[in-house]
């Protein structure tokens, strides 16, 4: 399987570059349309949407993304026919060019981005379809689709950007769209604030991204392209040859890029915005805050894999933060009562898994989990959207229950997705999660051993995941209904909602088969597909990471994770799958329960150490600097001085011509005296 890339790697070694082989670019015109179509859709719906009929808005909104998906699929098929390492490229225009640096606005489709582009456009299309039903009653219908399309444009730009700068444009674009869509119902102050919180938390990461890019620019040879000889890889080569100073620089760059990823992908310490982001409409939560945008950080790190693996310390940091986030968020999700909050913390936890995978060098697993997560989490969110829509915007799971009969398709797809996320064989999440856990416990990055901390936290998080997902499922669909009976009678599903759900449910069930473990079958399709990007990492190809293929160890890991998954599921079932009067009363007064319900008081902590001091500084700047110094001294002070001078001078203008003449004569006489 690695044969092709092995010879290719030898070629790369001759060039002295540490990273995947740089192949040849082939031009692809349709690729530009993949990005442009959603932009055109966003423009039409955004500018003319108010005057257009709803059906036209729908056609443009959904059609542009569907067409983008078709074009993307066509180009991916073309890509599959090319030799490994080659990529498709749209050479745009030179954006700016100093003699030392040339940045072009170009797009690129390689094996890594092809996975992302299909997931994003595919899941995106389904969610667009779902939105047509979910948002039907909303007066901002056209605005919603305009934002969604704009988001698709930015996300595709992020994925297909040929260099870091174009990626960053998309990176900022998705942040903006996230902000716009979280605060979509901006008349509700709380939702508007949630949007701002997301935006501000993301800014922290974006700043780190920019600084990292600037540092990187010092060491590249003329560009920040992902695949070119003067690009990112050349900087890695340069820095690795530069001794301990170079290692330090690499570490700083990696950590800064990781901070950027933490902002976008909601990792500790910047995850706080994601749970609040659930204030947006549910399709938005599904598309942006579960399936696509929040995985951008993982994608970016996978994209920069030559950089990250060059710094083992940075990899350890990434793995530890990922594992901690996975566990931390999973424990919070155990006790949440808002259906979307549970899913939000679950998302944070699952992205923690992906970050963990990146940190232990299992980039394939990260992308694999990213893909399966997009399927089942989008399905879960859309399922929750279907429930919320049916129950007239009720989100509290304590007011639900027994919806199994009312929402049959939602019920089935939700259940399948719960199985998938819990890692029950042979649903999608089983394969990806096991691959990550196995790699965490066995991978050896040169200079370090297996990352047991990440592995252990991953395992506990997986157990928690199974429990809280089935707690959510049984509280929502099992038992008997606990809310307003009138609402229950009217609850129903819609075709535009069940169709995407069914589609995603099937993907959640079978999507994992692209990555069957070596144990069962040798052909790991996704790994083979991604080998042009990640194949070089393996020690067998001269790379820095030793991947284990120990069957016994793999069996143990699979056995253990399946066992805890099923255990979590059964415990949740025994606790929550009952009628309303027999539900366990949560020990709400217990200390641990209160800590979890209040999310470890992180928001309060941030409020204390960041928000309040900042407000203090703001108050100081306002009261003392602005009102006191600038207004008082500069603005009013200067006016007062001018006024006083004027009051003094106006005494001279007394209207007495003789006085004026006196001044003239005396002045002239004095001047003449000095002139003589």
């Amino acid at each position: 399987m690695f044969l092709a890339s092995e010879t290719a790697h030898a070629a790369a070694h001759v060039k002295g570059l540490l990273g995947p082989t740089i192949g040849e670019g082939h031009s692809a015109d349709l690729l530009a349309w993949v990005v442009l179509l959603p932009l055109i859709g966003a423009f039409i719906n955004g500018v003319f949407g108010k005057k257009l009929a709803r059906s036209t808005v729908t056609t443009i909104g959904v059609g542009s993304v569907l067409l983008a998906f078709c074009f993307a699929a066509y180009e991916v098929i073309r890509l599959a026919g090319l030799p490994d390492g080659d990529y498709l490229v749209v050479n745009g225009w030179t954006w700016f060019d100093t003699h030392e640096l040339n940045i072009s606005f170009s797009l690129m489709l390689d094996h890594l981005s092809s996975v992302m582009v299909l997931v994003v456009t595919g899941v995106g299309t389904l969610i667009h379809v779902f939105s047509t039903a979910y948002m039907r009653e909303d007066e901002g219908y056209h605005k919603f689709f305009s934002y969604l399309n704009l988001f698709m444009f930015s996300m595709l730009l992020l994925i297909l950007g040929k260099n870091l700068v174009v990626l960053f444009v998309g990176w900022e674009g998705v942040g903006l769209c996230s902000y716009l869509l979280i605060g979509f119902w901006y008349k509700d102050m709380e939702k508007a604030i949630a949007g701002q919180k997301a935006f501000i938390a993301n800014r922290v990461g974006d700043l780190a991204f920019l600084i990292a890019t600037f540092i990187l620019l010092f060491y590249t040879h003329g560009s920040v392209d992902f695949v070119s000889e003067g690009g990112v890889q050349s900087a890695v080569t340069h820095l690795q040859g530069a001794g301990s100073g170079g290692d330090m620089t690499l570490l700083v760059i990696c950590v800064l890029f990781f901070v950027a990823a933490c902002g976008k992908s909601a990792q500790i310490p910047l995850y706080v915005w994601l749970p609040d982001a659930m204030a947006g409409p549910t399709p938005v939560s599904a598309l942006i805050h579960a399936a696509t945008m929040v995985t951008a950080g993982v994608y970016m790190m996978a994209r920069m894999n030559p950089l990250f693996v060059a710094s083992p310390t940075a990899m350890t940091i990434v793995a530890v933060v990922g594992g901690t986030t996975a566990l931390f968020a999973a424990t919070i999700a155990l006790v949440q009562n808002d259906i979307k909050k549970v899913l939000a913390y679950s998302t944070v936890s699952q992205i923690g898994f992906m970050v963990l995978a990146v940190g232990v060098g299992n980039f394939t697993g990260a992308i694999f989990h990213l893909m399966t997560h997009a399927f089942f989490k989008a399905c879960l969110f859309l399922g929750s959207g279907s429930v919320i829509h049916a129950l007239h915007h009720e989100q509290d799971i304590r007011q639900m229950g027994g919806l199994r009969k009312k929402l049959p398709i939602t019920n089935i797809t939700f259940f399948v997705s719960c199985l998938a996320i819990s890692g029950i064989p042979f649903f999608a999440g089983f394969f990806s999660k096991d691959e990550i856990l196995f790699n965490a416990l066995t991978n050896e990055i040169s200079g370090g051993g297996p990352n047991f901390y990440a592995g252990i936290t991953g395992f506990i998080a997986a157990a928690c995941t199974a429990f809280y997902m089935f707690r959510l499922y049984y509280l929502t669909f099992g038992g008997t209904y606990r809310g307003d009976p009138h609402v229950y009678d009217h609850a129903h599903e819609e075709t535009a909602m069940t169709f995407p759900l069914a589609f995603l449910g099937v993907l959640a069930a079978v999507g994992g088969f692209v990555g069957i473990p070596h144990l069962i079958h040798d052909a790991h399709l996704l790994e083979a597909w991604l080998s042009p990007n990640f194949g070089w990492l393996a020690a067998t190809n001269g790379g820095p990471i030793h991947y284990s293929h120990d069957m016994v160890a793999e069996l143990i890991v699979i056995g253990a994770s399946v066992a805890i998954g099923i255990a979590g599921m059964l415990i949740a079932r025994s606790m929550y799958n009952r009628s309303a009067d027999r539900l366990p009363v949560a020990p709400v007064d217990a200390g641990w329960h209160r800590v979890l319900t209040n999310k470890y008081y992180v928001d309060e902590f941030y409020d204390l150490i960041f928000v309040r001091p900042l407000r203090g500084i703001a108050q100081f700047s306002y009261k003392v600097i602005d009102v006191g110094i600038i207004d008082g001294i500069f603005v009013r002070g200067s006016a007062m001085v001018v006024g006083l001078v004027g009051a003094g001078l106006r005494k001279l203008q007394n209207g007495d011509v003789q006085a004026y003449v006196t001044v003239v004569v005396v002045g002239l006489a004095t001047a003449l005296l000095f002139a003589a």
Partner: protein
Amino acid sequence: MLPFLAEAATAVASSTTSTPVHSIPLQWFLIVSVALFAVGSAGVLARRNALTVLMSVEIMLNAVNLAFLAFAREWGNMHGHVVTFFVIAVAAAEAAIGLALVLGIFRHKKSINLDEMNALKN
């Protein structure tokens, strides 16, 4: 007292042989001219009666005329005379207009005291 007065005195003393027309040196004319100008200026600046001020202006103009003529005589050309004619013409016009104005103001205010004429204020 002043160096140029001493010089003038020497010039007078030594001019007995030259023609009487040139016997008075330039400086003397200028001293008279400056004195007249100073007297006129003082009148313009200090007096409160508009008529007196107008007369003082005439004195100043004539002081200047004297200076011009003195220079003309000194250099032996007619430039100073030409200018003086113009000044006399202008002075006549000025006197006419000035008196008309004073008359107008008097009709209006029943006074020609300059202290009361402060319409330029504000």
